[in-house]
């Protein structure tokens, strides 16, 4: 085996591509592609009596997923992920802009931005519970200030889930946007101002189009993991704010319906794929536009 690899290298001294990709590729094959194939197979097999599957073929699980109950969960998942992405974008863009223009202190700010990752996401989510629950910090402060008599219902709401999702995802939006703003040549802004562009116009005509790739990357990095999140909705949303991640987890856990869980997982994956293709297509179209116009001359 080893000698085989050495012989292969000797024969192909100029193609290290396979060598570079080999280890990662094998890893993905064993721990990503294979399980997914198993999932795919499970999703079209009848449910076993005590978990697991029985031999056979059925599309029943996919049909079941079209039930309004589950579609409602799917709709809420997409809606929350969308809101989370939007909130992250609104919070991250000005932050990233400030960091990128803060000179030598920007490394400090970048460290601060990723600081929450130094603790586990579970701990951070529990911290949110301490903030939001009826006797939590926020309610206590508001009552002490005399602004409210009874505690507000903050925990186990859609808002709580959203807050938790945004908290966890924000750095994934800040970093790519920061990278794209940092690359922006300040002379471009001066050029735009010299040509008559007021500040809003400088933003819409120059800054935004040139940082859009960072926004697209950040949005993808926030939206996709939000779709699959289950810890945050489980702890902060309770049973009524279930997201698709909780549904899938339930099927593999208490409900012992592995085929249905697999089918739901595949439905989400298809959704992610469509979203990613959409973003890539947008970027691809834009590039094609530029070069084809140029070559057309």
């Amino acid at each position, binding site marked *: 085996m080893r000698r085989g690899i050495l012989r292969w290298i000797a024969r192909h001294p100029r193609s290290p591509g396979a060598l570079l990709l080999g280890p990662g590729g094998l890893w993905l094959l064993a721990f990503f592609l294979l399980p997914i194939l198993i999932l795919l197979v499970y999703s079209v097999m009848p449910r076993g009596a005590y978990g697991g599957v029985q031999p056979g073929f059925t599309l029943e699980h996919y049909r079941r997923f079209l039930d309004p109950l589950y579609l409602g969960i799917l709709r809420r998942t997409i809606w929350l992920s969308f809101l989370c992405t939007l909130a992250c974008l609104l919070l991250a863009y000005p932050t990233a802009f400030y960091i990128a223009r803060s000179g030598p202190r920007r490394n400090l700010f970048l460290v601060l931005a990723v600081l929450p990752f130094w603790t586990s996401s579970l701990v951070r989510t529990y911290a949110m519970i301490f903030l939001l629950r009826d006797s939590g910090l926020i309610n206590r402060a508001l009552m002490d200030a005399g602004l409210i008599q009874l505690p507000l219902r903050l925990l186990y709401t859609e808002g709580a889930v959203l807050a938790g999702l945004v908290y966890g995802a924000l750095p994934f939006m800040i970093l790519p946007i920061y990278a794209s703003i940092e690359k922006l040549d300040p002379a471009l802004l001066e050029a*735009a101002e010299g*040509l008559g562009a007021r500040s809003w116009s400088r933003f819409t005509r120059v800054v935004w189009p*040139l940082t859009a790739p960072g926004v697209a990357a950040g949005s993808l990095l926030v939206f996709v993991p939000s779709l699959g999140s289950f810890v945050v909705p489980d702890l902060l949303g309770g049973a009524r704010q279930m997201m698709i991640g909780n549904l899938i987890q339930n099927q593999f856990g208490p409900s012992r319906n592995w085929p249905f869980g697999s089918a739901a997982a595949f439905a989400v994956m298809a959704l992610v794929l469509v979203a990613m293709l959409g973003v890539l297509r947008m970027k691809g179209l834009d590039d094609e536009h*530029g070069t084809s116009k*140029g070559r057309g*001359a």
Partner: protein
Amino acid sequence: MPASTPEQPAVEFRGVAKRYGSTPAVRDLSFTVGRGEFFSLLGPSGCGKTTTLRLLAGFETPDAGEIRLFGEAVNRRRPYERDLAMVFQSYALFPHLSVERNVAFGLEQRKRPAREIRDRVRAALELVRLDPGTFATRRPSELSGGQRQRVALARALVLEPRVLLLDEPLGALDLKLRKEMQVELKALNLQLGVTFIHVTHDQEEALAMSDRLAVMNQAEIAQVGTPAEIYENPRTAFVADFIGEANFLEGKAAGRPGGEAARGSLEGWVITGDAGSFVVPPHWAISEGGDVRIAVRPEWLDLWRPGCLPRGENGLPATIQDLVYLGETIHVRVTLANGRVMIIALRNEGQLIKPLPWNRGDSCIVAWRPEDCQVLEG
């Protein structure tokens, strides 16, 4: 048209100062630029020339003094309220926009009708000799350095500014292209009648293109004048050294010239230094017994055999050190009695048919006419 009378200069700086933290970027700048003039700000990096341009453009606000454009104070005006346009050193073309849209940017901001924009963009591209049919739809990344430069120029000129600011516009181009663009920029200046203000650290470029130039050093203007004034009458050692090549000589003013050296109408001073004595023309900065420093351009010097000095010329004994063949000229380096090295530029009359009669180690006299040296201030 704003109220301004024809006799008012295009640009006027009155005691303008700007500091960054505790370091002054420019100090007490005062100069004027006439209408339609090609004016250069020349100096080494960090001398404040770019700050001066940015103050004029409105990207910086002066701490003191007043900047006037066509007679109107513009200190507080935004860049787009000054009726000027700038070509940036890096060109600062918008990478996401085609050439056409780059050039149209300023007109779009001014909300001009689409038809007018199209016509003016086309005219501006033709003005800088870029074929609109070929280049209009290209992105900046698909252009060469010289083409980008032309787009940046078109983007500024399409606005028909009254003053065009150029920040080291030719710095990134190779030598041949630079020479071409020098000629073209100068031609545009004459053709359009627009005032050009040009920042450069390349003294040759400044001499070749400018009607007048300001030499800057350490946040101040060292001298303002025409290229000939700057080159032939440098006022300070810095200017003499920065513009072209110069030989420097020092000594004390020993007295008025007498005897042969006083022939003709020349009044002046005899300067005595450790390399010998020489005569300089009269100058306000010289007083009896005071220190005097002069500059002499290499091409104003001549070489003679010992004992052959023409009448009325200054001569210092020297030894030939080496000859450097430069093509058009030959630089002869000689050592004076005090060890100082001087460079003499002799016209090359053909080394193969009429070689210079000098060899390393020969004794010689370095000679120049008293009026061909420049007494330096300070």
